[in-house]
């Protein structure tokens, strides 16, 4: 019998699991996919928002500002890329400027620190590539950018090192109430747990409905993105938004933590939770909008495009509560933007709720907040590089030519706790294939390494999901 089972290994699930590993509890983290962060966490804007967007009094407002505060420490502990680069909300006319003032006022009520309203000249001083048509902006210095899946993977790894069990490839198909908790069918396993935390993202309503008559509905909302080559990554230095309108926060322009440029997202309610396709209309829409904001941008620089699906709810706020019908069953649902930012605060909040159910829980005296840092070969000095290769020659073999990723780094991410088992899993952890050739050169080499390290046949190596096989057999 587990004390707590967390369903869903996205950013909220992994944050909660890691937070729970600070206590003496038997915790299980389950996901239906074959990797951490394979849902909404792997396809979003990767922004740590300042907190002026959410309506005061909502969970979103409260947890956004607190979550933002927690980011420096957590990313330091877990060796995850995070940069506090600030954000701008651009105004193009007087009406926009009114909105900027409203956002500033709301930010103040939400206790967002370090905000200022800038005039055109000050904005262009900060961002020389922006359109001359802007009239001013809200500048929030605490906004930042993060590697979302790196964070979730790091949290899972750290949670596992502190005693949490991880169970992947296990779709939860049934939950039943039993005497002192719940019985869960996950994949081909049956488990028992005193407490369930439902962090199933887009599928959190389905999980809830397995047990409860009181239901909520997840409304899938699609957002498409274009990701650009590093050669244009410095076109902006901060996260640049347009003024929000009825269509949402609009298309944003931001550098990523790795120095690429990200444009997007669109916003479109869709019928399906699995419609991860990009559309010609969507990708063109993003570029047209960026065109208005930037003086000039070459769309030749796009290296990939992708779609994320937001888990929205009707009332637009997070649902974080214990079910009235099923005590010990906690929903953590409707975590759309600013979910990534709020996630560390959501974890704190959920642990407090659980204490309300379990009473005081004993601390895990052995808890180690730190994760063994990753080696980023290219960031080392020449001397450090030379010493490292002497110790382990695999760091002298560059596998990914675009990002200069070594075999040593790839082997490391495969062999870590919660390590990579797929081609995309390696890419998300160590970045081979993230560059301008998108794996054209390195994919066969990474597959060889994956097969060797896991002692499987290369034909068993998949791209991402379980059935995403790459090779179909031998040649004649």
């Amino acid at each position, binding site marked *: 019998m587990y004390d707590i089972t967390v369903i869903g290994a996205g950013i909220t699930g992994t944050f909660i699991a890691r937070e729970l590993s600070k206590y003496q509890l038997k915790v299980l983290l389950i996901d239906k996919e074959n990797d951490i962060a394979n849902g909404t966490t792997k396809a979003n804007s990767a922004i740590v928002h300042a907190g002026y967007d959410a309506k005061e009094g909502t969970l979103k407002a409260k947890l956004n500002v607190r979550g933002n505060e927690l980011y420096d420490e957590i990313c330091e502990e877990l060796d995850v890329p995070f940069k506090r680069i600030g954000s701008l909300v651009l105004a193009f006319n007087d009406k926009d400027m009114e909105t900027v003032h409203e956002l500033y006022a709301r930010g103040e009520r939400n206790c967002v620190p370090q905000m200022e309203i800038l005039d055109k000249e000050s904005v262009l001083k900060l961002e020389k590539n922006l359109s001359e048509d802007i009239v001013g902006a809200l500048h929030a210095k605490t906004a930042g950018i993060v590697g979302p899946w790196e964070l979730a993977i790091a949290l899972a790894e750290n949670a596992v090192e502190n005693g949490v069990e991880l169970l992947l490839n296990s779709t939860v198909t049934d939950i039943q109430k039993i005497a002192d908790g719940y019985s869960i069918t996950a994949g081909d396993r049956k488990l028992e747990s005193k407490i369930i935390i439902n962090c199933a993202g887009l599928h959190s309503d389905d999980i809830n409905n397995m047990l409860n008559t009181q239901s909520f509905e997840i409304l899938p909302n699609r957002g498409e993105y*274009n*990701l650009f080559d590093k050669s244009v990554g410095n076109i902006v230095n901060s996260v640049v938004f347009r003024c929000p309108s009825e269509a949402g926060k609009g298309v944003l322009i931001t550098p990523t933590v790795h120095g690429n440029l990200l444009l997007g997202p669109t916003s479109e309610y869709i019928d399906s939770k*699995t419609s*991860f*396709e*990009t*559309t*010609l209309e*969507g*990708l063109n829409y993003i570029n047209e909008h960026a065109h208005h904001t930037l003086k000039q941008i070459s769309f*030749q620089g*796009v*290296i*990939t*495009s*992708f779609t994320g699906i937001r888990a929205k709810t009707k009332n637009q706020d997070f649902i974080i509560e214990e079910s009235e019908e099923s005590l010990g069953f906690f929903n953590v649902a409707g975590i759309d933007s600013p979910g990534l930012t709020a996630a560390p605060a959501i974890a704190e909040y959920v642990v407090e709720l659980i204490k309300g159910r379990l009473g005081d829980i004993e601390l895990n005296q052995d808890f180690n907040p730190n994760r063994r840092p990753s080696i980023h070969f*290219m960031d080392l000095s*020449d001397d450090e*590089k*030379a010493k490292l*290769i*002497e110790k382990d*020659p*695999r*760091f*002298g*073999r*560059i596998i990914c*030519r*675009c990002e*200069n990723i070594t075999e040593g780094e790839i082997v490391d991410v495969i062999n870590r706790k919660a390590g990579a088992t797929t081609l995309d899993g390696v890419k998300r952890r160590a970045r081979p294939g993230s560059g*301008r*050739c*998108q*794996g*054209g*050169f390195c*994919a*066969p080499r990474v597959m060889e390494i994956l097969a060797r390290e896991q002692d499987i046949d*290369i*034909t068993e190596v*998949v*791209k*991402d*999901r*379980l*059935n*995403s*096989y*790459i*090779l*179909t*057999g*031998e*040649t*004649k």
Partner: protein
Amino acid sequence: MVHYDIVVIGGGPAGLAAAIESRKNGVKNILVIERDRELGGILQQCIHNGFGLQIFKEELTGPEYAERFIKELINMGIEYKLDTMVLEVSDSKMITAVNPTDGMLHIQAKAIILAMGCRERTRGAIRIPGTRPAGVLTAGTAQRFVNIEGHMIGKKVVILGSGDIGLIMARRMTLEGAEVLAVTELMPYSGGLTRNIVQCLEDFDIPLYLSHTVINVEGHDRVEAVTIAQVDERLKPIKGTEKRFECDTLLLSVGLIPENELSKSAGIKLDNVTSGPIVNESMETSAEGIFACGNVVHVHDLVDWVTKESKRAGKNAAKYVKGQLENNCKNIKIKGINGVRYVVPHIVRPDNVEQTVELMMRVDNIYKNVKLVVKSNGEVIKEVKRKHVAPGEMENINLDFSKFNLGNSDEISIEIVKEGE
């Protein structure tokens, strides 16, 4: 720190030919740096024949063609390092490289020859909408899997792009038992050699859809279907012309991009059209003593042209090392206009021309019965008749500098003129 007279970056056909030619021209202290596990470059995965018709007057496969140069290189005792990645080239000709046995390498060269080749454009670059399942590969990656690793990559295939690699992979996949449902080409003409259209598509009854592109990819885990549509003159898909193919693989052959990240690190000027360095008659880039040749300069359709161009780079790098290249002399700009997209070299210094310079160029469309007209400051100095020119086939013109008086000419242009005009 180690010193070499000439360091060649890249051990593919360009690098091999350049190194050999440098040696033949009297330079002994040469190093070839190759990032892959073997010499020969992409030729090693091109197991089809048709290589060497110009250079050897016989039809070789890619590995056979490469082998001749590799043998010659080894027989000459030219040094090479495999599995070695150059991280940086400075304009003072310092090279930083890394490999598992030497660790970090700092190499000072008197001259450098850049021969890094090119890479393939990807799905992202052309924004093909749809899902992102396994089974979408560039044709070159597929070629590596099939021809070198011995793995099949699909059973039912749609190919986008009718460049030579796309055409050759259509045939290769068919020979390996896969069904190629369609080769789709955005432009109204193929980007490949005519002989490949015939030998790779027509001989196997593989349909070619000109003026078509891929507008959707379906499938969550693996490709399940690909939809193509006809495009209008502005290359926009036309509603109602969609055709959906159930398949498990989409191969992309949508263009090659010279790999010039190192050239950029050395501050070398690049040409916007070719995406390669701007070079002079000696294949020297804007950085003195740094030469470039092969697909890193501009994408060639025949390896024989790469070899010829690279020999020129190797020979002139040797001259440079020996102090025999004239730098402070007249520069004549070579420009492609009116249908000629680009010309390589971009600059000619007549003082360094022994007799002729071979000008290589590509046209921007298919033209029939035309003349390629070379003018010096507006005056016609040479005309070459062509029955047929196409963007997929590189044109070469030998310009004999001893034959005409350049006078005060500072620009030579090449253009397409219709016969009778």
